[in-house]
């Protein structure tokens, strides 16, 4: 798969990021950071939930260990994704390429690349990352500098796009594969339970909730349907 194909697949993610990071830019500035600090955070971290938590810790003048622990828990899902994506990587993703491309493993980039029915390579991954990185950084800049100019109805409507994209990945795969349909359904049910049970919602961070729901659902799928999913794909 080529750089160009990745670049095209990155368009939807880049547009989504532009709107999501726009709200991050607003948040960062209202937490007391300057615009260039907000932009630098987006450029070096490229993660949504982690950055929101990070800005909160910065605003509260938190410690370095607290920062590291928070990022570890919130972003632990990336470790799962990295191992999963590793199974789909072709030979062009050698160690140096992996050290570079792993910087770009976000929920969406992972979702799109692992949603491909075939192995992915270095060129594709780099192409896929271009527009998301630009969108994420540019959106932060715009939000930080001119967040309050645009009407909120417009920025809010853009923020939902990223979820629409997730739906576009999960639904077609679920139609093709019973195992994926079951796992996705269970994951949604668990996520609802976590969201609407007050004690769970208050005590467990959203990053950790995602890990628990995803792992439990995937385990149930593994032990009931088993290997059918990947056989269908490869």
């Amino acid at each position, binding site marked *: 798969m080529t750089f160009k194909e990745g670049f095209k697949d990155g368009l939807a993610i880049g547009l989504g990021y532009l709107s999501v990071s726009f709200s991050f830019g607003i948040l960062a500035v209202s937490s007391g950071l300057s615009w260039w600090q907000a932009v630098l955070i987006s450029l070096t971290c490229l993660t949504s939930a982690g950055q929101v938590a990070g800005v909160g810790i*910065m605003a509260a003048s938190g410690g370095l260990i607290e920062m590291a622990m928070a990022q570890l828990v919130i972003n632990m899902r990336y470790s799962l994704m990295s191992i999963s994506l590793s199974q789909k990587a072709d030979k062009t993703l050698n160690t140096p390429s992996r050290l570079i491309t792993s*910087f770009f493993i976000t929920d969406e980039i992972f979702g799109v690349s692992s949603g491909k029915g075939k192995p992915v390579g270095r060129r594709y991954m780099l192409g896929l990352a271009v527009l998301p990185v630009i969108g994420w950084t540019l959106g932060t800049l715009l939000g930080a500098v001119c967040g309050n100019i645009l009407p909120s*109805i417009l920025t809010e409507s853009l923020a*939902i796009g990223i979820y629409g994209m*997730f*739906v576009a990945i999960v639904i077609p795969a679920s139609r093709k594969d019973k195992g994926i349909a079951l796992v996705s359904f269970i994951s949604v049910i668990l996520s609802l339970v976590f969201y609407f049970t007050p004690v769970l919602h208050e005590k467990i961070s959203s990053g950790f909730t995602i890990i628990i729901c995803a792992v439990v659902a995937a385990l149930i799928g593994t032990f009931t349907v088993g290997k059918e999913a990947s056989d269908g794909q490869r």
Partner: protein
Amino acid sequence: MDNDKFFSLLIVMAVSTYLIRALPFTLFQGKIRSKRVQAFFDYIPYSVLSAMTFPAILFSTGSVIAAAAGFMVALFLAWKGKSLLTVAVGTCLMTFIVSFLLTLV
């Protein structure tokens, strides 16, 4: 916030986020042999995306009604097998239209 404090926190944040991604991706290069473990990692993308999307999608805009309308459009277009961009744009458009109509009520 002063620059020294900012940069030390930023470096910790960026490095820990990077290592969480890079270590597993670089260390686990071999293909997994066990069918069970393979199945588990094949399911993970979909279970992660599902848990992240619902119910969070309903609370991602100012109005739950507008978000629900957008979600319905997303389900419909995705069921029809439309591209990622088409589904994303359709979702935003519907959400915007319903949000706008709600301001008129």
